[in-house]
């Protein structure tokens, strides 16, 4: 089930010297599989994890995560 939360993690990783998924996972204390799932929109991170990811890249939260337009449930 795809989440409506989209993200730019992949682009941000490459902009930060091709940071690997495993490296990002290690920085925030999750597995590489979880980073893959987040990037592919198969897992919505908690708010705390989202902030941790944004902090790793040194950007505001809404530069990493976006919420697709449409009717909210």
């Amino acid at each position, binding site marked *: 089930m795809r989440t409506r939360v989209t993200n730019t993690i992949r682009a941000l990783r490459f902009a930060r010297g091709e940071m690997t998924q*495993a490296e990002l996972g290690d920085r925030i204390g999750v597995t590489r599989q979880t980073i893959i799932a987040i990037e592919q929109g198969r897992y919505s991170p908690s708010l705390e994890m989202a902030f941790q990811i944004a902090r790793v890249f040194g950007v505001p939260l809404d530069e990493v995560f976006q919420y697709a337009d449409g009717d909210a449930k």
Partner: protein
Amino acid sequence: MTVEEKRAWIMAAVSPGAFAVYAAIILVRAGGAPLRDVPYVSTMLWTIGISIVVSIVLHIVAAITSGADAHKKDVRDREIYRFGDTVGQVFIFLGAVAAMGLAMAEVSHFWITHVIYLGFAVGTCLGSLAKIAAYRDGIPDC
């Protein structure tokens, strides 16, 4: 694939597999006679015991053959584990309720035992399939 996902695959296969083998043995043994008259207790206990041993061995093999990265577990694994367990428990609960109904109706012990066993087998299998689906496609909004 993480060790946790491999474990889900193992349980999704072993639990219904053991039940199918057990059911085949009992049906062959009955040979057309009423099922409730078939001796089943030792066969059921052996089947459950062997399935536990097989799943332990397969879990060990999965752990040995997986890379170091696959052994890590995080919040997503825990959420998926909880989701799968919740799905599985629904069927275990239904099996228990059905068994209670059969006991109240004073149906043969044979059927009560088997409804409980079927509930466990179905619950374990579907709970594991739910975990696999959550690993592949995400945890559904409930």
